């Protein structure tokens, strides 16, 4: 099912897709670092946006080439051997197949729109550590890293992009670095995702040496896929101190890589960096934490679908983790008041959906939801950014309300995004979410998959609830803004609004790219799920036909729709019809509310159980007691002091200065030697 040998074409086109943004970033770097004056504003816009747009055009062209029926299904661009030592060899080469084609389109398109949006958003920033060119430099660098990640032909180039996006998110979250908090959030993001990266690296090691054992040492995806059947049944025995159980090698590798995905794609337990990442400018949140970087984990799982298909244990873990994360994050989102925080937890939750699908074998469904999520989440974030701009950098919804009258265009765009994410037909979210839930429903190999489905539906209800809550509190109802401030609220600039409109269109219509067959039959379209058909050759399980009838599928869709509608209704009641009600709920269930509002105190738990003890041990025990005290104090300086003491208190007294005692000792010594020689 994985297309490896037939139809591979060499091309030198692919390298320009990541390299154009890199070149733009490099030019920025030169100007910022070496020249006296930075690039003028127009130059920056032209360079950065132009580079990403050019990447987008090339991606379109490459995609179109893939679509042609006689052409090769896979294109490769090999530059040179990057690292080679002994058996290990990693090429710097790019791979264009259906999965990466979808990804580069999403990344470059959404990336381009966000670049345009940033022109307006970052323009009025009057803080003293701004840098219009610096921002675009980082954005370009990020785009480069993300494209390396999805275009990489092997695990190592993917890892390069993986770490690169981590770096850029560090730079961008902490963009306004003169605030201590922003710098802290950036650092947190980098370090937490790196913990996951340990798993990724270990996964590479295990996989590589297992393949080397059967004579096929490689880290390139196509070759791993080809050689994988030879090691698919290997078993690993854990050492005694870990229980001595027997695991499938594929499961072990899958879990290691998933640990990396947990970090990058903010699943439990490594999601804690994402909400705090909202400290960065809103375009950053849109690009990195909604549309692209966080989806890297999902991409990775789908790229390695052949591995996960052979590792039911790992897939089950992925599905359950995704589901629990989705529900968990949704429960937190219903109590948050900061626009961006709600959207952040929403992202964590939606990522959970994607992993749920991937774990249940619905890799195409996961990628479908990834794409639609990219559109509507970016739309929501950019819309939130427009609101923030309109409110002169106010983010707390407690201080908003009734904005529909003041900024109608933003409101309509935002509403499109809200409807999409809630999964109301015929917007895109409806189709992609249903695909996810269907995959969960039909995944009989995962234990408790009906529970997974149930969690998915419950999350859909909560999603609808918190999204409409957000929408109503921001745009409708009695306004909580002071009248004189209300007059100053106005629509943001065109460069800010036009990306919103474009994204809104896609948020509405993108679903039709993956229209499930049940609707396709209604409309008389054969093979309506074009996306799944497109991806089928490179994903494990091909089209992944879940064994449910069309009738069942419709009933499930109605159930999910009902859940979403219920959430909408509750939100309407609580926030429009009876605004006092939420307050009373909060009083009545204060404990529960506090738990959710404080995000289950997870940050505090991590801090108390992990961060503080580590620093304390490092300082008190390791540094002061052992290093300075024991090794340096006792061993090194202690030896020196002992020698000095011995000399000062012992050997010194042999030098009495009395000639006669010296003479006496000499004679004694001579007698002893002579005596020994004559013995």
């Amino acid at each position, binding site marked *: 099912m994985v297309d490896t040998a037939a139809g591979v074409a060499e091309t030198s086109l692919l390298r320009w897709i990541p390299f154009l943004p890199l070149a733009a970033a490099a030019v920025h770097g030169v100007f910022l670092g070496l020249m006296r004056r930075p690039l003028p504003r127009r130059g920056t816009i032209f360079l950065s946006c132009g580079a990403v747009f050019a990447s987008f055009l090339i991606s379109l062209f490459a995609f179109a080439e893939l679509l042609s029926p006689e052409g090769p299904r896979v294109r490769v661009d090999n530059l040179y051997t990057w690292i080679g030592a002994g058996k290990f060899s990693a090429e710097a080469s790019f791979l264009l197949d259906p999965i990466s084609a979808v990804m580069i389109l999403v990344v470059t398109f959404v990336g381009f729109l966000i670049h345009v949006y940033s022109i307006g958003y970052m323009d009025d920033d009057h803080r003293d550590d701004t840098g219009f060119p610096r921002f675009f430099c980082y954005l370009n660098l990020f785009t480069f890293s993300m494209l390396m990640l999805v275009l990489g032909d092997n695990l190592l180039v993917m890892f390069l992009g993986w770490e690169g996006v981590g770096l850029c998110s560090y730079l961008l979250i902490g963009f306004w670095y003169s605030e201590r908090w922003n710098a802290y959030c950036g650092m947190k993001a980098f370090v937490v995702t790196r913990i996951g990266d340990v798993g990724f690296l270990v996964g590479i090691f295990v996989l590589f040496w297992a393949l080397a054992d059967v004579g096929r040492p490689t880290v390139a995806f196509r070759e791993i896929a080809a050689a994988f059947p030879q090691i698919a049944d290997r078993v690993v025995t854990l050492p005694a101190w870990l229980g001595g159980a027997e695991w499938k090698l594929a499961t072990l590798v899958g879990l290691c890589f998933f640990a990396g995905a947990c970090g990058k794609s903010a699943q439990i337990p490594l999601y804690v960096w994402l909400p705090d990442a909202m400290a960065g400018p809103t375009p950053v949140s849109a690009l990195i934490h909604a549309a692209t970087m966080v989806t890297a984990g999902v991409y990775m799982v789908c790229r390695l679908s052949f591995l996960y298909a052979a590792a039911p244990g790992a897939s089950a873990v992925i599905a359950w983790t995704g589901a629990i994360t989705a529900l968990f994050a949704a429960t937190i989102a219903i109590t948050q008041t900061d626009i961006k925080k709600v959207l952040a937890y929403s992202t964590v939750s939606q990522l959970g959906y994607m992993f749920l699908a991937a774990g249940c074998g619905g890799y195409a469904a996961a990628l479908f939801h990834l794409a639609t999520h990219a559109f509507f989440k970016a739309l929501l974030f950019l819309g939130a950014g427009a609101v923030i701009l309109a409110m002169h950098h106010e983010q707390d919804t407690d201080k908003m309300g009734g904005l529909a009258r003041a900024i109608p265009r933003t409101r309509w765009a935002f509403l499109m995004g809200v409807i999409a994410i809630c999964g109301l037909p015929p917007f895109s979210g409806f189709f992609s979410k249903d695909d996810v839930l269907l995959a969960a429903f039909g995944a009989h190999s995962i234990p408790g998959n009906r529970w997974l489905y149930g969690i998915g539906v419950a999350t859909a209800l909560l999603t609808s609830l918190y999204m409409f809550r957000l929408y109503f509190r921001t745009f409708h109802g009695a306004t909580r803004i002071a009248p004189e401030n209300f007059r100053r609220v106005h629509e943001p600039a065109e460069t800010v609004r036009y990306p919103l409109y474009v994204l809104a269109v896609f948020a509405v219509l993108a679903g039709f790219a993956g229209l499930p067959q049940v609707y396709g039959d209604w409309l008389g379209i054969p093979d309506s799920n074009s996306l799944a058909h497109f991806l089928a050759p490179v994903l494990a399980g091909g089209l992944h036909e879940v064994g449910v009838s069309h009738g069942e599928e419709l009933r499930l869709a109605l159930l999910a729709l009902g859940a979403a509608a219920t959430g909408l209704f509750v939100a309407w009641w609580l926030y429009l019809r009876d605004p006092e009600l939420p307050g009373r709920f909060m009083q009545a269930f204060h404990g529960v509310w506090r738990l959710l509002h404080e995000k289950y105190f997870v940050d505090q738990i991590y801090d108390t159980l992990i961060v503080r003890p580590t620093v304390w041990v490092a300082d008190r025990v390791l540094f002061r007691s052992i290093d300075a005290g024991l090794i340096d104090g006792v061993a090194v300086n202690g030896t020196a002091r002992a020698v000095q003491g011995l000399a000062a208190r012992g050997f*010194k*007294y042999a*030098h*009495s*200065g*009395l*000639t*006669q005692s010296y*003479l*006496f000792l000499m*004679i004694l010594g001579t007698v002893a030697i002579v005596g020994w020689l004559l013995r």
Partner: protein
Amino acid sequence: MLVPLEHVIALSAVIFGIGVVGAVTRRNLIVILMSIELMLNAVNLALVGFSRAWANPVGQVFVLMVITVAAAEVAVGLGIVLSLFRNRDSVDIEEVSLLKW
């Protein structure tokens, strides 16, 4: 063979022993120098005895060398004692202990 070798060696040993005791025990520098001379002469005696017993002239030749060295050493030693006396008004060896800890 008038005097048995054993007697010569015994005498030499006794004189050497007296010299050692004198050098280690006495406090007067001049007496110490004399004891050192005693030791040297005791060695001379032994050398002559052995030379006569084994009819090897090398022993007696060596005695001449020892006597020369002894004379030179006494000259230098008395010079040091003189210098010491001029500076410290004493020839007590216990007072020459500046190189102590």
